[in-house]
């Protein structure tokens, strides 16, 4: 059984298509794995009991899907009490495109409510555990997806990334996590949080696996007005990386933005590129540090508008009442958790009359400045590198009572989201306690193929080892 579990997505697809193994055998191995260990990890909210295999190239190899991505006929809760029993009447475009060629959704993974959070502790149902240390968070908001991949319950998973929600949990769980360019993957069926930032992302244990999934789901969709018409590429066809012709900007950060261990690892990361003969230079960006504040104004503003639809009338939680106002208020009071309320209030404040110029408008201007500053770097460099997170996975409960402390988890990922740039977190090494450390690579808009090629180059050099297959007890 273990031999199947450790295989990469592309290897399993290949074996099935060569008839070396059957779809059922592959699927059953993973279902057994889920049944035997997920009570400890708690990555999944729902497992699809139907077990149907549609014919196609991807048939039988399980994919996990974050529970804010709509799946026809399969509960999609967004980690919220409000949608506890909600069953979408359609598939998200990303899901539909996988299913067209046999893609098999095994289940839906846990997240912070409506993708708002960095630890899955904001899930209305339970907190997912980090497979490397069950006392620690898996990161968030796509913590269930990252934990499921890291603990060999699935080879790949879909997540969503608004400010770092794919990359940060990927870093905490020692796996790869790609947030593509804004507009590369249709958002149709991804439950909206902050529409100008939301993007479906992919989590896997190899860059090649991410490339395969991206190849299936990327591309224009008439159902998403923000999806791009720029041609997709064969993302699995990696470029040859020639270090002496590859220019990298290593971002410089204030000393207090990183734990000591992270600081040392980042130096090692830079040293790796130097040793391999890349052209790498340290660069300081003036406006990067404002990204966090800009993000919490813009994302909250958009969230306050997007979440206005949850009123208890057409679907979701409803608290019966004899007048309409109290029906809205009671349904939302009972249906939403703390963090969601905080962000709705923050967003409503930023957009309200008298404060709009000072908050939302100002944040939008700074956002443009941050975007331009990053874009300018790409006229001189092919890639930008940085750590993914300020520190390794923290303990459950450590930051949950201090929202601002929690917000700093996304310091390195947010500015790239504000600019719509593609970025990936790669597992780089382990710290003294054996916890994974993730490093980030970003590229110019629509350069996912280059991003994955460099990730693959690094994987082949450092060979990060995930040795937790038998270790979760």
């Amino acid at each position, binding site marked *: 059984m273990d031999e199947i579990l450790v295989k990469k997505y592309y290897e399993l697809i290949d074996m099935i298509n060569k008839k070396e193994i059957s779809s059922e055998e592959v699927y059953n191995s993973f279902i057994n794995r889920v049944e035997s260990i997920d009570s400890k990890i708690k990555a999944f909210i729902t497992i699809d009991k139907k077990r149907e295999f549609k014919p196609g190239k991807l048939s039988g190899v399980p994919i996990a899907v974050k529970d804010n991505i709509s799946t*026809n*006929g399969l509960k999609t809760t967004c980690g919220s009490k409000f949608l506890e029993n*909600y*069953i*979408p*009447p*359609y598939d998200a475009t990303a899901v539909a495109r996988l299913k067209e060629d046999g893609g098999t959704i095994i289940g839906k993974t846990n997240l912070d409510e409506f993708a708002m959070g960095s630890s899955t502790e904001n899930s209305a149902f339970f907190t997912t555990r980090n497979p490397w240390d069950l006392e620690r968070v898996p990161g968030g908001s796509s913590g269930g997806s990252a934990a499921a991949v890291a603990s060999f319950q699935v080879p790949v998973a879909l997540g969503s990334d608004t400010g770092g929600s794919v990359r940060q949990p990927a870093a905490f769980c020692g796996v790869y996590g790609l947030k593509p360019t804004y507009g590369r993957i249709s958002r149709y069926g991804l439950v909206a949080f902050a529409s100008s930032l939301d993007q479906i992302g992919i989590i896997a244990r190899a860059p090649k696996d991410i490339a395969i999934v991206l190849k299936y789901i990327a591309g224009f969709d*008439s159902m998403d*007005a*923000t999806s791009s018409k720029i041609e997709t590429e064969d993302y699995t066809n990696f470029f040859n990386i020639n270090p002496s012709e590859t220019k990298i900007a290593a971002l410089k950060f204030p000393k207090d933005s990183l734990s000591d261990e992270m600081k040392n690892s980042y130096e090692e990361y830079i040293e790796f590129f130097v040793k391999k003969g890349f052209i790498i230079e340290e660069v300081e960006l003036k*406006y990067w540090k*404002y990204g966090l*504040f*800009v993000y*919490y*104004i813009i994302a909250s503003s958009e969230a*306050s508008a997007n979440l*206005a639809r949850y*009123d*208890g*009338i*057409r*679907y*979701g*939680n*409803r608290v*019966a*009442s*004899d*007048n*309409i106002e109290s*029906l*809205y*208020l*009671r349904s*939302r*009071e009972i249906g*939403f958790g*703390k963090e969601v*309320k*905080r962000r*709705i*209030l*923050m967003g*409503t*404040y930023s957009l*309200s009359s008298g404060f709009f110029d000072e*908050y939302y408008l*100002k*944040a939008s*201007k*700074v956002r*443009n*400045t941050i*975007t*331009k500053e990053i*874009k300018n770097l790409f006229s001189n460099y092919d890639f930008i590198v940085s750590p993914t997170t300020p520190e390794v996975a923290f303990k459950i409960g450590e930051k949950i009572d201090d*929202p*601002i402390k929690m917000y700093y988890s996304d310091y390195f990922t947010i500015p790239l989201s504000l600019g719509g740039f593609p970025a990936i977190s790669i597992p780089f090494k382990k710290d003294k306690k054996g916890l994974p450390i993730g490093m980030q690579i970003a590229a110019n808009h629509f350069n996912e193929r280059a991003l994955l090629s460099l990730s693959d180059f690094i994987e082949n050099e450092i060979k990060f080892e995930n040795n937790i297959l038998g270790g979760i007890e």
Partner: protein
Amino acid sequence: MKEVKNIFKLANLEYREDENLLNDLENIIKWVNILNEIDLNLISEDKNHKIMELREDKIKKFNNRNQIIKNIPEKEDNFFVVPKVINNG
């Protein structure tokens, strides 16, 4: 804090005085005020916003009406039931 009460109202959320929510909100607003140190005159105005393309407004058939109806929390003969919203004369 009249202003704060109004924010709750606009957000369609129940106002409760005792909640830490108020404190959190105040702290977050203070925290983002760091943006005030940026001189807006120094940053350029121009926006890289792409203008969203419009598409033709075509009717498309949706074939899973049943599931939509199943999701209605309170219904009668496939209609949404809501409390009375019009006051008596």
